[in-house]
């Protein structure tokens, strides 16, 4: 049988971000998938070397718009360690609150995208509508809907007052109800079960060798969460459960995310109720660091986020290495697609909660260097000169 190569992306209705999956199929069956990236490269690691410690904070937040607060947290907690600054407890609680709100809206977003991909448009619209409540909460706490920018070296930029605390608590109650409802939909709906279960299975035995992280790893039965294994911010004082499942398929990944979103609601409620007294906004901003290196880890909505920051003293970082969760989750799971139908490819891909802007800050792929002659539908349709 003839093997046909079908490019999915970079501009594709099923993908909201620029990435290219080269899918080689034999009939309907997928025989090979290669991930081609490179449409989102911004050279951030080099940019961080050129800018000062304080400016780097804003650049690191703009690695990714969805998980910006966790990126800032990772950078800031690493730099604080190098500077010998300890943030006050109240600041740590506010940071935790913002990061958990971000986790809720990120998990709702991927559930919405998944609903859209499987053709369940009503669910997509409903999820997006209720996600606006979380965005409103984020705006209430930080002043911005997307880029929180609430972190500051040695504290936070904005304090929380009593009025806003009460509004957060009442909104969280509605959000929790809605998440429980959508979790039930994903658990019981016949179409969703048909499309997601037993699709894109990653077994527990191979999960660690493949080096996947986050909800994708926890859905394969390995309880590894940075928040409990390597506590940062206020997580050592907050009680919460690590959600995991054993199925390892796309459905399990979605259910882990819903379970986590519910945990996040309770963490957010805890931080608001038990917010310690004292200052949260630093009076002075430190500018220079001691020489040394630090490996800073944070649990982003998509998994373990790691910054390796090296300083030789002075006003600029010497080297900042950013390893985002999607970088591992997207690149290491090419083999999972094999044997599935073509229509399952976007489902499996979306179940990793891919974040392209995270992955590609260091990636550019040359389209022309592929030596093989591809027989793609699009190329056949469009004869290019030269």
């Amino acid at each position: 049988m003839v093997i046909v190569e079908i490019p999915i992306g970079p501009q594709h209705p099923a993908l909201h971000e620029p990435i290219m999956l080269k899918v080689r199929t034999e009939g309907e069956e997928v025989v090979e998938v290669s991930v081609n990236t490179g449409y989102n490269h911004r050279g951030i690691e080099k940019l961080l070397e050129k800018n000062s410690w304080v400016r780097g904070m804003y650049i690191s937040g703009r690695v990714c718009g969805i998980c910006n607060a966790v990126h800032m947290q990772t950078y800031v907690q690493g730099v604080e360690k190098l500077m010998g600054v300890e943030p006050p407890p109240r600041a740590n609680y506010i940071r935790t609150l913002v990061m958990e709100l971000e986790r809720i809206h990120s998990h709702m977003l991927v559930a919405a995208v998944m609903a859209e991909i499987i053709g369940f448009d009503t669910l997509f619209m409903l999820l997006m509508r209720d996600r606006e409540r979380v965005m409103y909460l984020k705006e209430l706490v930080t002043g911005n809907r997307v880029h929180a920018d609430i972190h500051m070296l040695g504290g936070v930029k904005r304090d929380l007052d009593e009025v806003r605390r009460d509004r957060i608590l009442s909104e969280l109650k509605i959000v929790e109800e809605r998440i429980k409802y959508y979790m039930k939909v994903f658990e019981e709906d016949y179409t969703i079960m048909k499309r997601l279960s037993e699709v894109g299975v990653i077994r527990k035995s191979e999960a660690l060798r493949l080096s996947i992280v986050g909800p994708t790893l926890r859905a394969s039965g390995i309880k590894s969460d940075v928040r409990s294994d390597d506590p940062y911010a206020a997580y050592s004082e907050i009680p919460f459960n690590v959600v995991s499942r054993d199925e390892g398929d796309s459905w399990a990944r979605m259910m882990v995310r819903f379970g986590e979103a519910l945990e996040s609601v309770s963490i957010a409620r805890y931080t608001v109720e038990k917010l310690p007294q004292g200052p949260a906004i630093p009076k002075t901003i430190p500018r220079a660091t001691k020489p040394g290196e630090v490996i800073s880890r944070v649990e982003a909505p998509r998994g373990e986020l790691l910054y390796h920051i090296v300083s030789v003293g002075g006003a600029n970082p010497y080297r900042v290495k950013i390893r985002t969760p999607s970088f591992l989750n997207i690149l290491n799971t090419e083999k999972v697609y094999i044997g599935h139908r073509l229509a399952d490819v976007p489902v499996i891909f979306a179940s990793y909660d891919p974040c392209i802007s995270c992955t590609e800050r260091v990636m550019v792929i040359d389209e022309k260097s592929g030596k093989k002659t591809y027989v793609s539908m699009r190329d056949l349709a469009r004869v290019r000169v030269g």
Partner: protein
Amino acid sequence: MLKLPGILSTLGLEGMKAIRYSPWVMHFNAGACNGCDIEVLAALTPFFDPERLGVKLAPNPRHADIIIVTGALNKKAAERLRRLYDQTPSPKFVIACGACAISGGVFSGSYPLFSRADSVVPVDVYVPGCPPRPEAVIYGIKKLLDRVGEHGGD
């Protein structure tokens, strides 16, 4: 194919009218951090309800009337933005959404960056912000439609 300039210009005017009442929007991510993208996505969902203006998300450049460009334009994406722009049927309009698409934003000066969005395609409306709120995105579309109305619609 219709190659006569006279017919084309008439089509253009009719097309202008059509766009005035139901512009289809295609969203192109040229290297954004996702901040603008989720806001554009949020702007196209029922909470903000752009369908009252006739705005609908088009999956394909060949169906689109308006291209919303987000993100700092890198060298690789610049080539593709131009190609997508050429594939879009006339009349077509471009909205540069967010600080990065307008000027490069925090990424300006980085080595893989090409330039601003308006160095590759003509931009009609700039929506500033990092990221712009969904209301701002809808306001930008409305501004564009008003301008189209002055020239082509009624």
